[in-house]
């Protein structure tokens, strides 16, 4: 009986305040969608990091005949120097996990494979490509150790960390994420303010009822619950819209458009999305309830 009464009051309130209800629903939906998008970008960065950090290597390019850096002043690397470098790499285990030597011929084959549709391959001979050590580190963040040991060492033309190339890209994505989250936070503040205003208007519209409820001894719970539920219901509807938007982004944007065109990388998975959805859904409800609760404390004193 109590529950039925509270629910019927709640829905009367929602109906009476239809325009405000819609405004709350829309701002909640928009802000939560942005919030979800921010989380999605982060999840995407995470899954790309997982995917790529497993695959990135440090490349130590050895001097070729035409290299011009000072460390190559003695000309192309000799087999002895190459052997020494390999020994020095071995000395750095266990940081150095795997060492793979790529000869000019292998580099050439890989080059042909990578650019097989491009005319550029016709002008390149195996000799133009450097031989190298491909080194996989047990902790890819410790690139500096390798750089310090081999940068400028005679016979080494260049040490290149693929991870640094990736990080530049990730920083870009992180920037996008920060923007999306900042806008989302601003929108959530707007949402909270809108809820505050909606509750104020609703409390004013129902002041006679509320006055009578107080007079006959209705509990605070009974008086406030319909208002709180109004806020919660609007927030929940907005939250569902945001959830639908995120799911749609996964199905129609990521799975159907992005993933088929960029097969070389991983995309955010359903596992990660499943974590994001309840977060955005409940964030909206919690914010709306808090805003409503604080407003009610001010405007509906006993």
């Amino acid at each position: 009986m109590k529950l039925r009464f509270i629910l019927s009051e709640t829905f009367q309130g929602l109906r009476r305040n239809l325009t405000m209800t819609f405004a709350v629903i829309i701002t909640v939906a928009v802000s939560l969608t942005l919030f979800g998008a921010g989380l999605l970008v982060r999840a995407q960065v995470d899954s790309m990091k997982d995917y790529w950090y497993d695959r990135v290597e440090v490349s130590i390019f050895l001097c070729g005949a035409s290299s011009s850096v000072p460390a190559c002043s003695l000309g192309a690397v000799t087999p002895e120097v190459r052997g020494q470098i390999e020994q020095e790499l071995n000395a750095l285990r266990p940081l150095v996990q795997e060492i793979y030597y790529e000869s000019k011929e292998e580099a050439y084959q890989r080059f042909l494979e990578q650019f097989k549709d491009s005319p550029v391959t016709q002008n390149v001979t195996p000799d133009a490509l450097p031989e190298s050590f491909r080194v996989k580190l047990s902790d890819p963040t410790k690139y500096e150790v390798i750089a310090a040991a081999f940068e400028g060492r005679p016979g080494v033309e260049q040490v290149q960390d693929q991870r640094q190339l990736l990080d530049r890209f990730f920083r870009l994505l992180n920037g996008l994420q920060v923007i999306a989250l900042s806008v989302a936070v601003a929108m959530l503040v707007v949402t909270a303010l809108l809820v505050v205003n909606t509750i104020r208007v609703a409390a004013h519209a129902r002041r006679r009822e509320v006055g009578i409820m107080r007079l006959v001894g209705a509990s605070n719970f009974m008086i406030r619950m319909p208002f709180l539920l109004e806020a919660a219901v609007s927030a929940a509807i907005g939250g569902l819209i945001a959830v639908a938007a995120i799911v749609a982004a996964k199905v129609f944007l990521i799975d159907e458009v992005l993933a088929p065109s960029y097969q070389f990388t991983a995309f955010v998975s359903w596992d990660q999305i499943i974590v994001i959805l309840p977060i955005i859904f409940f964030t909206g409800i919690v914010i709306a309830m808090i805003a409503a609760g604080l407003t009610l404390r001010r405007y509906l004193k006993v």
Partner: protein
Amino acid sequence: MITFERVTKRYDKRNRPALQDISLDIQPGEFVFLVGASGSGKSTFLRLILREERATTGRVIVSGRDVGRLSRWKVPQLRRGMGAVFQDFRLLQSKTVYQNVAFTLQVLGRKNAQIERAVPEVLDLVGLADKMQRYPHQLSGGEQQRVAIARAFVNRPPLLLADEPTGNLDPATSVGIMKLLDRINRVGTTVLMATHDAAIVDQMRKRVVELDAGQMIRDEARGVYGQDHQP
């Protein structure tokens, strides 16, 4: 039922207190008129009992509870033990007579079955059994006040407070309302009524407490409205 112990109420520091050093006792089952000129503090007196205001000094005790010191979440409990009626009826215009009265019980979380039994019963008591489905604007002033009384009484509180309940009604209608309040008093309900209406007070011959500029100047067992009326 109600005890005032040296109660003073000041709304603000500059003006004289709305009530000054009031002490009195009201026994269960009594019918008490609170009379006095406009601004003498009658409504303030009732508001202190309802805990809509708190005494500045002194204690207001209702059914053994010190009303001023009641914690906020116990106030609803206090108010369930009293009904209140006002000059302006305070009905909900969008609800029917039946719904207005049922609202009290719904708000207190009563069961449907109980509501369906209690509402027609109390509407019968106030003589509106045949107008349950009307809206307030389809009723006369006297009938609206009966609805308000039904709403205040449907929960059968031991105490009924009335602040000028006949203030908006003509004399004949007022008599009807007074008969109803008397009937409610006869079943054991304590009734405390603030009024300007000399004719009613003189006719009823109940206890009269008179306030003047916040001070209690008279407390008479079977009194009349003004001193000069006295035989």
